[in-house]
């Protein structure tokens, strides 16, 4: 446990922190102690209250009650400036960098020395060179942020904190956007920082990272701190149980698939983003009726692009056949409407910005994407709103969406119920091919099981399902076949029974026979 002198005060001690947003209790009476020079993990599901707690520590929110003690001194942190003064540095999940500024300009922003920039810039250049030597934190100081890779951007964020002489570094889901190699590099940096006596708090929902790098770990569930344990004395199974509050079945019983005819055939699919960077670099896949194909991979390796092309959102080159019919990837018929007509349904990765219009009522959302459907029309000119309402009520009933009020705006439903609205809309169309991205992101456990059952039922009815998820567990337990994506390519295909997390992890990192 680091080099903690038993008499020395803790780097951070939180005593009885509570915070409510309206009726929602985000943090309930939370207390933790983090020893100086240690790496402390905080693990919990989405919405467990981890980010709220860290925002309190960084001065974004004021706790309703409780006390923050830094290095033995009770401290109030009313704003970020005070947090920085108290020696706390934060690396956010979404980087807070100015795109058209250089690295140096971003580093000094907020801690300039004096009114003129020139002295600050030359000082920062020197400090940066030292930090780079000390911690493997190399970045080109004059590079523009918009030209840097994600891994480099994260280094800039860490450098920002170190430049502000942070002793306590908080990292919020730092590996979500990194490749395994970049994540390894990050962990090396963190170990180096720990060696220098820095205290690190790592927020994550990945058990593997907790086990790999932390000294102690705290588990959060529904706003409460359920346990704090030395990492060496715990196991992933125990942590998982503490996280969700009951025994989780990591494998689900399901009937073996009986794949039929080919539904989806993808041949040499390529996509360029608006900046001209190739995001899909020749993807080949086939998917049969009655089969769930899981796409595994670290976020940002082309899975989203694959879904978007198949869903008609973005354009591509190559060939895609649905039920033997080639579909248009660039022209007049490459939009969501044509795709739906071809029997493709799509549950998008982000239901709030894509899958739903948050201000529309549930019934209006039930027609979303299918508003041209004949059943929803009164005559050639007008839509039949009454029919849509009735249809929505029926689907809400079948999918147990609560509250069962078609007139309620989508934004007033919980995350799980919003997802059920989308899933109901898409599955009830009885598509030949269901595209489904991150089906359980931000969804409560009960809804997760329900949604998985519906996907399985669709498969058993002889339909094809393309499941994209960054959660390896979900892919391993739900898929009939697994394809791993890395850097815009399919790295390899595996059967869930004949592989394990280690092998998939290597493929996700770009290490595999195809790449050799």
């Amino acid at each position, binding site marked *: 446990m680091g080099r903690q002198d038993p008499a020395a005060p803790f780097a951070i001690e939180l005593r009885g922190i509570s915070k409510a947003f*309206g009726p929602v209790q985000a943090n309930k009476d939370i207390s933790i102690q983090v020893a100086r020079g240690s790496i402390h993990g905080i693990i919990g599901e989405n919405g467990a209250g981890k980010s709220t707690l860290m925002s309190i520590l960084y001065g974004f929110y004021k706790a309703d009650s409780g006390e923050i003690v830094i290095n033995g001194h009770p401290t109030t942190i009313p704003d970020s400036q005070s947090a920085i003064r108290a020696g706390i540095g934060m690396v956010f999940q979404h980087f807070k960098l100015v795109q058209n500024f250089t690295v140096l300009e971003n580093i000094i922003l907020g801690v300039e020395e004096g009114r003129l920039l020139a002295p600050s810039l030359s000082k920062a250049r020197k400090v940066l060179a030292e930090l780079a030597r000390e911690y493997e934190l190399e970045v080109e100081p004059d590079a523009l942020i918009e030209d840097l890779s994600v891994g480099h951007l994260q280094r800039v964020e860490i450098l920002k904190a170190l430049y502000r002489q942070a002793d306590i570094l908080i990292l919020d889901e730092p590996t979500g956007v990194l490749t395994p190699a970049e994540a390894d590099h990050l962990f090396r940096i963190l170990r180096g920082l720990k060696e220098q006596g820095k205290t690190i708090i790592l927020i994550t929902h990945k058990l593997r990272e907790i086990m790999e790098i932390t000294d102690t770990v705290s588990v959060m569930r529904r706003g409460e701190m359920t346990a704090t344990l030395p990492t060496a004395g715990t196991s992933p199974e125990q942590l998982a149980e503490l996280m969700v509050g009951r025994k989780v079945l990591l494998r689900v019983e399901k009937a073996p698939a009986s794949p039929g005819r080919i539904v989806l055939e993808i041949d040499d699919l390529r996509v360029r983003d608006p900046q001209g960077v190739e995001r899909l670099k020749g993807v080949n896949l086939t998917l049969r009726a009655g089969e769930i194909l899981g796409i595994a991979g670290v976020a940002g390796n082309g899975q989203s692009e694959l879904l978007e092309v198949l869903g008609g959102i973005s354009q591509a080159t190559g060939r895609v056949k649905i039920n033997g019919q080639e579909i248009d990837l660039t022209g007049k018929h490459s939009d*969501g409407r044509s795709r739906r007509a071809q029997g493709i349904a799509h549950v998008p990765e982000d239901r709030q910005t*894509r899958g739903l219009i*948050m201000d*529309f009522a549930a019934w209006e959302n039930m027609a*979303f994407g299918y508003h041209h459907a004949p059943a929803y029309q009164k005559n050639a000119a007008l*839509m039949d709103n009454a029919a849509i309402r009735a249809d929505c009520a029926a689907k809400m009933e079948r999918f147990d969406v609560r509250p069962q009020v078609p007139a309620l705006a989508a934004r007033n439903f919980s995350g799980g119920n919003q997802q059920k609205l989308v899933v109901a809309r898409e599955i009830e169309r009885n598509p030949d091919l269901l595209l489904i991205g991150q089906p359980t992101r931000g969804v409560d456990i009960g809804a997760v099981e329900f949604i998985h059952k519906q996907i399985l039922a669709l498969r058993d009815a002889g339909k094809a399902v393309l499941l994209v998820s960054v959660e390896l567990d979900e892919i391993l337990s739900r898929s009939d076949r697994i394809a791993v994506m890395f850097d815009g390519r399919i790295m390899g295909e595996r059967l869930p029974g004949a592989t394990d997390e280690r092998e998939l992890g290597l493929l996700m990192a770009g290490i595999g026979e195809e790449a050799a």
Partner: protein
Amino acid sequence: MGGMPKWADALLVPLLSLIIAFVISGLVILLIGEDPVEALWIMVTGALGSTYGWGYTLYYATNFIFTGLAVAVAFHAGLFNIGGEGQATMGGLGVALACLALPWPHWSLALLASTLLSAVFGAAWAALPAWLQAKRGSHIVITTIMFNFIAAAVLNYLLVNVMRPRGSMDPATARFPAETNLPDLHAILGAVGIPFAKGTPANISLILALLACGLVWVTIWRTRLGYEIRAFGKSEKAAVYAGIRPIRITMYAMLISGALAGLMAVNTVQGETNRLLLNSVEGAGFIGIAVALMGRSHPVGVIFAAILFGFLYQGGAELALWTRIPKELIIVIQALVILFTGALDEMVRAPLRRLWRMR
């Protein structure tokens, strides 16, 4: 947000904003040494106290219904069409061409032609900014502002150099033939036995405007196009997912918006002046912004807001006639309404919301 029911947001917020605007205007009247209560009385009697006053109030309201609907339709698509002024200017050109092109035997035929042409001209003037926004990402607010000035220059050129009758010094077209003159409310209501004052400018365009309200309502809330416009206006990303094409919707919404603004010219150019003058729009395109904001982009709201502004305009003219208060007072009220319903609405809403929570 929660707390406040929908109806309160739709009714109380504009109403409270209006009250604030009126109170501040009252203070301004006090400041310039006049009596606000007396001023209000003069406005009410002058604009609403007789069918003669109503004739003017409704004439102005007709303009504002058209421009208000124009702004409202664009709002639904998430677009801010600040170019109603230019589109209405071009609509005026369409009306003048329609009325002067052929010797129309009857006003109804002339009305048909001028309606069509004014809408087409207005839509055409909105088409390029719309296309630039959809295809090139040029901010539509800026381009429509620029197009207002360009429209003014085009009209100026045409009236001075091309359309001015030989020998006339006025930058205006020739007078339209008498056959194109539209029946006024006196004639229309007289036909069904309702007495209405003679000699007011309110004319059959009012019915056209109400018709437009109905059509806009049906389009926005009952058709697939309207559904797509609203969805696109709320979230472009989601709309694309649903197979709604942004370019198509931006174009359609702006064409409808421009056409509605252009239609306003039927009321002013054919219904009132009977020839095309410089600056016949007189800021009505901008008042459309206030009307749409007040009316919460709903056709019924637009009608009420347009009548309110019609009342203000006619009442303002009466004030200028009977007191030392210039009619620019109306511009101040209009500015305050826009400010409180459009930009400071959160300031008005926040205390209301708190009130609701306390119950």
